[in-house]
C-alpha cells in the first residue's frame, strides 16, 4: 500500500469516488438481475426496471469519470508527448490538465443551466415519472469531480510534482494495494 503524502483526506475522497460509482453500477446490475428473475421465474415483468437500471448504470459510469482519471484511464495520444524533453513535457502536461479542467467546469456550468431548466419545466421521465432534474443531477456533479481531478493535477505540476507518464497512475491513485 502506497502512503499518500497528502494525508487521509485525499484517500477518503478517493474512497468516496470509488464507492459512489461502484455502488451505482452494482445497484444497476442487481436491478437487471431482479428484473430477469421476476419476469422469467415469477412471470411478473416489471416495467420500471429498464429505465431505473439504465440510469443507475449511467450514474455509476459518470461518477467514475474521476475514478478513471485518478487511474489515468482516459485514453490519450502519447505519440508526441513521449518524445519531448522533460521540461517541455511538464509545460505540455500542465496545458493539457488546464484545458481538461476548463472543459469540465464549462460542462458543469452547462449542466447547471440545464438543471435550472428542468426544475422550471417540471419535466419527468416516461416510465417512472421521476423528475428529470434528479436524473440529470449527476452530470454537473460528475463534471465537477472530473474537473477537480484535473485541477489537482495542474496544481501538482505547478508545485513541481513529477511529470506523469501519461499512462502511469496519478500520485494518489493507489489507496489500496
Amino acid at each position, binding site marked *: 500500500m502506497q502512503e499518500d503524502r497528502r494525508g487521509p483526506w485525499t484517500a477518503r475522497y478517493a474512497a468516496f469516488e470509488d464507492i459512489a460509482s461502484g455502488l451505482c453500477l452494482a445497484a444497476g446490475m442487481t436491478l437487471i438481475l431482479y428484473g430477469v428473475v421476476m419476469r422469467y421465474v415469477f412471470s411478473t*415483468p416489471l416495467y420500471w426496471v429498464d429505465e431505473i437500471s439504465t440510469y443507475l448504470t449511467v450514474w455509476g459510469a459518470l461518477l467514475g469519470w474521476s475514478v478513471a482519471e485518478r487511474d489515468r484511464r482516459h485514453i490519450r495520444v502519447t505519440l508526441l508527448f513521449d518524445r519531448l524533453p522533460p521540461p517541455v513535457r511538464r509545460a505540455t502536461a500542465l496545458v493539457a490538465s488546464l484545458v481538461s479542467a476548463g472543459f469540465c467546469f464549462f460542462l458543469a456550468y452547462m449542466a447547471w443551466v440545464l438543471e435550472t431548466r428542468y426544475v422550471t419545466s417540471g419535466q419527468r421521465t416516461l416510465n417512472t415519472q421521476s423528475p428529470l432534474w434528479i436524473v440529470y443531477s449527476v452530470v454537473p456533479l460528475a463534471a465537477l469531480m472530473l474537473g477537480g481531478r484535473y485541477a489537482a493535477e495542474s496544481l501538482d505540476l505547478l508545485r513541481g510534482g513529477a511529470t506523469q507518464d501519461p499512462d502511469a497512475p496519478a500520485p494518489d491513485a493507489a489507496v489500496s494495494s
Partner: protein
Amino acid sequence: GNGASAGAAGGPIVVKFTHVAADFTPKGQAARKFAELLQARSGGRIEVRVYPSGQLFGDKDEVEALQANNVQFIAPSIGKLISFDPRFQIGDMPFLFADNAAENRFWRSATGRELLRSLEPKGILGLSTWPNGMRQLMNSRRPVRTPADARGLKIRIPSGGVLVDTLQAFGAGASVIPFTDTYTALQQGVVDGTMATFDNIENEKYAEVLRYLSVTNMNSLSYGVLTNTTFWDGLAPDLRQVVTDAMTEATALAEKLSRELDERSMAALKARIAVTELTPAERQQFVDASRPVWATYEPIVGDDLFAAAQAANQPGPVD
C-alpha cells in the same frame, strides 16, 4: 444561440425538422412534403432540413432540443408529452377512442387545443396532429380473442403508464424492452408479444418473429407536430400563414397515407400470419375488463377530457 436565425447575408431562414420514423413511412413522407411546400411557397425565404430515423435527435432528447430551439419542428407520439403533464395519457386510454381519426378530432376540439396550448409557457406550440393508428396485440403463443386468452402473456411495451395497467387488467404482464433489443427479444421469446400499430408492425418487422395478431384497436396513437414558440413568434405573419397552410396539406397527406397503410398492411399480414378479427361480443369483453383503468386515470386525466374524447367519437365538425 436562438436557432433558425436568418443567415448573415440575408440568406434563407434555416429550420430543422427531426423525427424518429424512417423516411418512407407516412410520417417521414408527410415531413418531407411539409418541407417541400414550405420551401417552395415561402419563395426560398425558408430552407427546411428534415432529419429522419432519429439521426439528429431521438426519443430521449427531441423535446428538450425543441425547447432550446435547436430544432424547430418535431413530431413525437403525443403520449411522450406526459413527461410534462399526465393528462397527455388520454390517447393511451383503452377503448376510449373509436379510431385514430377520433383522436385527431379530439386534438382539434376546444378541449384538445387547450391541452396542447398548456405547453406554450414551456416553449412548445402544437401545430397539428398526424395519425399513426390503433394499437394491436401481437404474440407468438396463441390467437387472442378474449382477455382470458391474453392472460399470462408477457407483452413488450415502449414505456410504462396506462399500457401497464391495461395489460394487467387482462392478466397479462408488461415489460419495457428498448427498441434495439425488441426484435431479438420477440424472436427468442424473452417476451411473448408486443402492442403496435400497423405502421410500426410493418416498419419494425414484427411479423417475421410473431405468429398471431389480434385486431383489438386497443388504443390510439397520434403524433403531435410541435414547434418552438420563440421561433414561431419571430416568424413574419405571412410566413406563419405559409407554415399553417403547408402543415394542413402535409396533415392531409399523412392521414391519407396512414389509412392506405393500415389497409395494405392488414391484407399483407393476413397472408403471412394468423390475424384474428374480434366479434363485437369478444371486443366487449376487452372493453369491460379494461374499464377499471379508466377509473384509475379519471382523477389524473380529468372527466372533462374523457367527455371530450367520447364526443370526438361522433364524426362531424368539431366545435
